[in-house]
């Protein structure tokens, strides 16, 4: 580009260290308006730190930032927003007990929140009034319709799934009409269609002159979307490349400093159907959880998984994935309206709680890392104990075998290359990707007979994701039955032997992954076209989206 005007944002020599680790060292970066710029790096390469400095959450130890060529002092997020910088956080920055509308209002500057620009002095412009709320609601509807991000303004965040929460973040950013939009792994929870639509949005925004700093581990996305990529390794910029002249493979190599290991994740075709049925679910129905208004009821789910097999369950966030995982691992109480049978290795699970099922050989990795997968304020060793005590015999006469716990945790840390100061580090202090590696590793380390895993590689870089996929396949080869619930369809297509989609609490028939197309899966995820049954009513994904916005309108009342 022969653009002579100063870049929108320039970083020079940004440096930040934390006790024991230099997160960023002398990072330079130039962002221009109209450009979608990728920021690439493995987990712990310092991407989040850099982003937090740009957004004013962290203060740089050294280095300076230039905004349109002028030195900018971004002291706090408000200053960043005032310049026109918006950030979609990686760990969602949402308030659980507040409504979607209130969360969005809180992310906007006071005069603008709820607002009528040009209506700043009226009482209604003061942020939270009825008239102000109505206006904000209208703006949310406008943005969410324009960019295909359906939202229910009056739902409370704690009722929403991961995917829905992310939509709130994105809409909140777009409402501020930013100059620079930073997206920290925005597509990890979207369907292919949603991702395609988001890309259109981003291209449209870039065409309007907006700069986008796009952080993702999905190299295919970066090659499809971005023009330039800055690659971080160990806190330093190792490369700034034109994406057009790179491939996903070469980018991965630059990012890791070595070639991505090749692995065939597919099961050899000959092995099919030879093994015994390990997990069988028939007619599983569950009423939505009490007190969670956004909960989805499970409707007559049938699922049979053999040893050595990986079954993938695709679906858009909030369609019953969490409920299915909860029901399978026995963490849900019995409620009226519950029906169906779950058997593990032929034994009926009725009445068996989570602990009993663990003893029977079932392990699970929930989608939410902190709160479900791990206790934030506890050490890795203690977290290791929490699910593994039964199968790793970490409990002796009611006492915790502390040394064995630490040994097991250290084993997981070493095997999955978890970047942590030690097994005494708090779970909350790990980056999302590293914690994910730890949680998955902890379950795999128990050699389960059946593994239910949700979003196994969410937020992981290519290398780590591959490690986990290979480990899952290896577990299956040893005879375990694995159910992978994921919103990452590409991953499921690559990893699973049979695949189905869950939509509104119903699970489609399972298909042989080799014989089903991505397009067909997209339709199944939208609740359409399973075996011809739904085609007449809901023909396309777009129609599915329309249904959703109709629901939204009803909720808005």
């Amino acid at each position, binding site marked *: 580009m022969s653009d002579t005007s100063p870049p929108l944002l320039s970083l020079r020599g940004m440096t930040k260290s934390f006790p024991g680790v230099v997160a960023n060292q002398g990072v330079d970066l130039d962002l221009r308006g109209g450009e979608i710029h990728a920021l690439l790096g493995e987990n712990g390469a310092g991407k989040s730190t850099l982003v937090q400095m740009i957004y004013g959450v962290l203060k740089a130890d050294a280095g300076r930032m230039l905004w349109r060529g002028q030195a900018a002092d971004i002291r706090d997020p408000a200053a960043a927003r005032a310049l026109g910088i918006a950030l979609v956080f990686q760990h969602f920055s949402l308030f659980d007990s*507040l409504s979607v509308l209130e969360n969005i209002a809180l992310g906007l500057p006071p005069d603008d929140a709820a607002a009528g620009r040009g209506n700043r002095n009226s009482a209604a412009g003061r942020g*939270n009034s009825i008239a102000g709320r109505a206006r904000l609601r209208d703006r949310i509807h406008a943005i969410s319709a324009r960019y295909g991000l359906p939202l229910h303004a009056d739902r409370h965040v704690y009722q929403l799934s991961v995917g829905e929460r992310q939509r709130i973040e994105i809409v909140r950013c777009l409402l501020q009409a930013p100059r620079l939009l930073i997206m920290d792994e925005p597509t990890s929870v979207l369907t292919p269609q949603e991702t395609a639509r988001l890309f259109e949005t981003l291209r449209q925004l870039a065409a309007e002159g907006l700069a986008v700093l796009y952080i993702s581990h999905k190299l295919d996305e970066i090659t499809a979307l971005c023009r330039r990529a800055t690659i971080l390794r160990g806190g330093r910029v190792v490369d700034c490349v034109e994406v057009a002249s790179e491939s996903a493979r070469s980018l991965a190599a630059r990012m890791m400093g070595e070639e991505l290991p090749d692995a065939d994740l597919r099961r050899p075709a000959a092995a099919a159907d030879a093994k015994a049925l390990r997990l069988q679910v028939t007619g599983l129905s569950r009423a939505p959880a009490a*007190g969670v208004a956004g909960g989805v009821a499970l409707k007559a789910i049938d699922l049979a998984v053999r040893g050595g097999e990986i079954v993938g369950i695709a679906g858009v966030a909030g369609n019953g994935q969490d409920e299915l995982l909860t029901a399978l691992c026995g963490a849900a109480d019995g409620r009226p309206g519950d029906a169906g049978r779950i058997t593990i290795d032929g034994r009926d699970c009725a009445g068996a709680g989570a602990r009993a099922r663990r003893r029977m050989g079932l392990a699970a990795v929930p989608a939410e890392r902190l709160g479900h997968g791990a206790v934030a304020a506890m050490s890795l060793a203690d977290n290791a104990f929490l699910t593994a005590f039964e199968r790793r015999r970490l409990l002796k006469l009611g006492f915790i075998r502390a040394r064995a716990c630490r040994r097991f945790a250290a084993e997981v840390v070493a095997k999955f290359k978890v970047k942590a100061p030690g097994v005494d580090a708090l779970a909350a202090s790990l980056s999302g990707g590293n914690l994910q590696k730890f949680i998955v590793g902890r379950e795999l380390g128990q050699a389960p007979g059946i593994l239910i895993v949700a979003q196994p590689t969410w937020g992981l870089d290519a290398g780590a994701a591959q490690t986990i996929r290979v480990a899952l396949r290896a577990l299956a080869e040893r005879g375990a039955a694995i159910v992978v619930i994921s919103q990452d369809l590409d991953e499921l297509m690559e990893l699973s032997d049979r695949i189905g989609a869950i939509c509104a609490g119903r699970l489609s028939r399972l298909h042989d992954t080799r014989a089903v197309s991505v397009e067909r899966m997209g339709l199944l995820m939208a609740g359409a076209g399973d075996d011809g049954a739904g085609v007449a009513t809901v023909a396309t994904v777009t129609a599915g989206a329309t249904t959703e916005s109709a629901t939204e309108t009803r909720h808005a009342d």
Partner: protein
Amino acid sequence: MDISGILIAALLTIITAATPLLFAALGELVAEKSGVLNLGVEGMILLGAVCGFAAVVFTGNAAAGIVAGALGGAALASVFALLALGLQASQVATGLALTIFGVGLSALLGQDLVGIAYAGLPKIALPVLSKLPVVGQLLFNHDILVYLSWALLAAVVWFLSRTRAGLVLRAVGDSHAVAHALGYSVLRIRLFATLFGGACAGLAGAYLSLAYSPLWIENMSAGRGWIALALVVFATWRPWRVLVGAYLFGGITIAQLHAQALGVGVPAQVMSMLPYLATIAVLVLISRDRGKIKRNAPACIGKAFHPSS
């Protein structure tokens, strides 16, 4: 006429018994909504009571007494803010210490006030309204603090649900980390909420020493601070329920007093337990709806926050 007269008199005593609870609980509710658990309500009430009474004795001005009461409570709350917010001390321990400190300090300050009599805050009969049959006497012929407690309720409801500042305050109580990331000053907001809570507790104290029983005696709050704390939970952090709860407590307190006077054959100690038993019963009933609690309970309550963490 006689019966309705007695009934009105009983209802009036319920209002006077409930008003200090309403003040203290509303203040604590706002503080807790911002994530501050201040267990020093009892101490702040006592300091408010002694400050209010002293101001009236020395100036002879009822308004000065009310202001002094609020300031006294807020002053003690500022000690809490310094320790628990500024220096990150445990909120629970600091609050308990504050109560003990408040009991002692108010006794010390009030040494010379014991035995002094005060006529009590004047009743303000609202024109026209107070002439209405029954309702007029019941609702529109009170001292200024009773009206103020109702106004405060309306103000708190409006503030929390309708203003941006109220929304920010609730957000800080729900997740201080997120609020900080979005650029809100967590500690400043919590400081204001804590001071407001202290001032309200001070008003509760002023009501006790200026209107409920216009005199000063040591430890005259008699556990009302603790009841107010329980009320906030019982009300699942919703102001309207605080009103219901305060009047329910007031009602049961008065009813058991009357029952004791009538010589009901139940030990006095058991009767005194009634208001507390009622709270527990209601608490259990209310906590059945987890969703409601999740929506209203401030998730960060009692947790220390430091901007750098």
